[in-house]
């Protein structure tokens, strides 16, 4: 199982994962799923909101409840204590970063991102400190 970000999660639903992504089950944290779901549920007047509103009902269902054979959503409860510990140790990171780093510690010490823009500086710094490899594939 490998831990991926929003970009690779969406590409997995589309069936458009990069060829250099390992051939393994993909998983996201609940925080990542939350950010994806915001695009569906948050009202807005931009082109993005209009495009998301145009998704079919089955398409929206694929976002809301991904099929686990394509994209798993990790149960946050076993990870939460360690995520809080990591957050505290590094000056109070947000849940998004702490949860992804914790998940990666349990799943191969790697993180996979589909866009360089989606990797924060703190994620890189803490990942390096924890021996986690951050990969970006586009």
């Amino acid at each position: 199982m490998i831990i991926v970000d929003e970009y690779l999660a969406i590409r997995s639903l589309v069936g458009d994962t990069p060829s250099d992504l390992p051939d393994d089950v993909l998983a996201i944290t609940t925080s990542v799923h939350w950010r994806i779901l915001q695009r569906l549920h948050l009202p807005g007047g931009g082109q993005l909101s209009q495009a998301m509103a145009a998704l079919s009902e089955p398409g929206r269902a694929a976002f809301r409840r991904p099929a686990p054979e394509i994209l798993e959503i990790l149960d946050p409860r076993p990870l939460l204590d360690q995520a809080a510990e990591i957050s505290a140790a590094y000056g109070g990171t947000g849940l998004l970063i702490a949860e992804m780093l914790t998940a990666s510690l349990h799943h191969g010490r790697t993180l996979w991102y589909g866009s360089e823009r989606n990797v924060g500086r703190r994620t890189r710094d803490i990942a390096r400190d924890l021996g986690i490899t951050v990969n970006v594939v586009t």
Partner: protein
Amino acid sequence: MTKGEQLLADMRRARRSGDPRLDDADRAILRRLTSGDLADEFAEALAQDLVDDDLLGGTSPDDK
């Protein structure tokens, strides 16, 4: 090919082909988010989530 190998190959093929609940129009919309004309707006929306929510994004500017 053993039965197990066949099963794993089928699972791999299903995983690689994406979610069948998405139709072609849905897939086209989502490609616009990840690599098309909506990529900038999508990236900005993800970043804004961290600004708007301290639990998610933390309180350090470096987390955003």
